[in-house]
């Protein structure tokens, strides 16, 4: 059935192995066909589509309120940010003015999501490299975020909290208090992360100089997020094209120049700290007011096309809506960050060892449904 996986061994000291779709290291159902010589990787060929859920086709028949719901299933780790991007696009098209309060809440939620996502990445990456305990420590803090989310949004993962024109409900009365508690907790725990993983000699040896991606390649492959920033490409949408209130907060765009797995790791660790900074700036200043703009019952976008870029935990997410003026989009395209980042995998992994591939994959932080859509 799968003619694409029919592999012919032409040279006899090459070995072709499949990693995935069911493999603990591919974090889902990515299928990599790896050509090995000894244990040295000669070629990595990603095969996608094992979780292609035809979201783009489906969205063509969903209304602008409903399709946001589907978008949180793509990059479920940045569900809020995905929803945010969709909401922004619809707002841009329908020219809805979002109340300040909603913007603050959205940004706080985004940054919380980013921390949660990076925490999961951190644990899972350490697990890829064979350390199990970080996973548990990471989830300890992540659970706190999840609880905060659940309290306000009503769900733990696929919150569906952002709607065109604002957020679905107002924040929970305890929200600010709990977020502040979390910030305190997190600040004390992130040093533990450094003790356990960052400074660990084995970890450093396994990631430094591994999966190198040059700056030119990063741009040419369209990499975004931590992957591109680790190669020295400044590409934080929050800084370059600020949306909502990102232009009002001060934070640094973390840049590294090494371009290897360790640089990508350090970028994400730095981003968590920056996110904390952003939340700290916002959490006490949420203005009073509406949390949702008044919108029509049936949203319709004018004819034309609308493109929004936001920075998810994985990089730049683009939502491209082509509207014909109906209540449903004519065509939707999600430009997912993982898709482009994945295309650079071959470049990064070539010449490395299988163990290096795991380090590279781990620091790429792929979410496969995001790539397949």
């Amino acid at each position, binding site marked *: 059935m799968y003619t694409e996986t029919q592999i012919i061994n032409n040279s006899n000291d090459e*070995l072709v*192995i499949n990693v995935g779709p069911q*493999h*603990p*290291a591919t974090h889902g159902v990515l299928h990599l066909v790896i050509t090995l010589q000894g*244990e040295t990787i000669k070629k990595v060929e990603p095969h996608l589509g094992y979780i292609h859920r035809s979201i783009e086709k489906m969205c063509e028949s969903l209304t602008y309120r409903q399709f946001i719901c589907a978008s949180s299933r793509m990059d479920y780790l940045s569900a809020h940010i995905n929803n945010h991007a969709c909401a922004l696009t619809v707002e841009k098209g329908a020219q809805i003015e979002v109340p300040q309060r909603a913007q603050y809440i959205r940004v706080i939620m985004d940054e919380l999501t980013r921390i949660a996502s990076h925490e999961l990445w951190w644990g899972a990456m*350490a*697990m*890829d*490299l*064979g*350390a*199990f*305990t970080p996973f*548990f*420590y990471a989830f*300890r803090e992540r659970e706190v975020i999840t609880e905060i989310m659940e309290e306000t949004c009503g769900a733990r993962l696929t919150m569906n909290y952002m709607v065109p024109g604002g957020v679905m409900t107002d924040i929970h009365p305890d929200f600010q208090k709990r977020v502040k508690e979390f910030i305190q907790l997190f600040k004390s725990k992130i040093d533990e992360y450094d003790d*356990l*993983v960052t400074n*660990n000699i*084995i*970890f450093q*040896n*396994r990631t430094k100089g591994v999966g190198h991606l040059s700056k030119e390649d990063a741009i040419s492959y369209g990499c975004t997020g931590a992957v591109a920033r680790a190669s020295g490409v400044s590409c934080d949408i929050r800084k370059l094209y600020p949306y909502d209130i990102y232009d009002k907060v001060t934070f640094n765009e973390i840049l590294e120049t090494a371009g290897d797995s360790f640089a990508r790791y350090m970028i994400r660790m730095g981003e968590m700290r920056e996110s904390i900074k952003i939340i700290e700036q916002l959490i006490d200043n949420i203005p009073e007011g509406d949390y949702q703009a008044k919108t029509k019952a049936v949203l319709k976008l004018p004819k034309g096309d609308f493109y929004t870029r936001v920075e998810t935990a994985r990089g730049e997410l683009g939502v491209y809506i082509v509207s014909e003026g109906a209540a449903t989009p004519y065509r939707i395209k999600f430009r997912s960050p993982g898709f482009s980042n994945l295309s650079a995998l071959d470049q990064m992994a070539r010449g490395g*060892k*299988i*163990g*290096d*591939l*795991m380090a590279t994959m781990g620091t790429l932080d792929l979410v496969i449904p995001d790539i397949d859509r």
Partner: protein
Amino acid sequence: MYSLHAITHSIQDWLSARLSPVWVLMIESIIVIVLAIGLFAVLGLILVWLERKVAAHMQIRLGPNRVGPAGIFQTSADTLKLILKEGLTPDGADKFLFNFAPFVVMIVAMLALAPIAFANGFQIWDINIGVLYVSAISSLSVIGILIAGWASNNKYSLLGAMRSGAQIVSYELSAGLSILTIVVLTGSLQISDIVHAQQNGWWLFKGHIPVVIAFIIFIIAATAETNRAPFDLAEAESELTAGFHTEYSGMKFALFFLAEYINIFIVCAIGATLFLGGWMPFHIGDWAQFNHVMDYIPSSIWFFGKTFFLIFLIMWFRWTFPRLRVDQLLTLEWKYLLPISLFNLLLVTVIAIMNWHF
């Protein structure tokens, strides 16, 4: 002072008084078989349970606690389930070797038990080349893994087997060299001699820093030889799914699983014997009163206590560190451990010859 020594001797005497030597041998063999199998089963159950509990507490969780008090029957349930699970053989596998491999690892693990002194006088065979014998036998364990990896007809298995092959043979060297440091100090390979040489203090404390270095190297090498994280490349889950036992299921898999833990026990027992005095209670020089108090604790408890302490160390490693890459693993051995242990051995020799140790 009570010891198992007396019990074994009384059994021996009782039997020899009544039966002909052949029968005595037979009955003794049966006793040994039953004891060995029992030890295997109990050790397997306890060690797996212990590991899960240790892991859980390091990971701020509880670990098994629903099957029996504190989950102590968890591993029994697991074992029973594994026994009752279908043990399938892949079609493409070399069927004979595939089924033969678990036996090899089991036999190797069992044979290595022979010279271990579990308590004062409680030893199956006090072989005169004791530690050499153990390192010889444990060098066999790689064979089982190679057979298993090859016979499975699976790429992951084969890669895993080759990795562990290179790894185990490499680390045998530094393990052997650190064993040699103690041999130099005691001048005997026999386990009982080594234990008795530590009557006035364990080598770890008597032998200055070189012995401590040797001890550390031994622990590292033991971890590597038993394919434990951070050296568990043979079954590197995130790279090679389950490594050399990817295709094994049911009881055959359980045997590999068990053999891994038994091997840990054996290397730790050897480590405890060499560096921590085996069943020898904690003695300080010729401070007779203190030593006498210590003697009241049975020797078997001393032995198991020390062994389990080392096992705990190895578990601690596993739940803390990331896995090494294959080349780093080999570099660690060939660039660091081997030269250091060679040099260290010479240092210990000087100490031994000069009688600088206590």
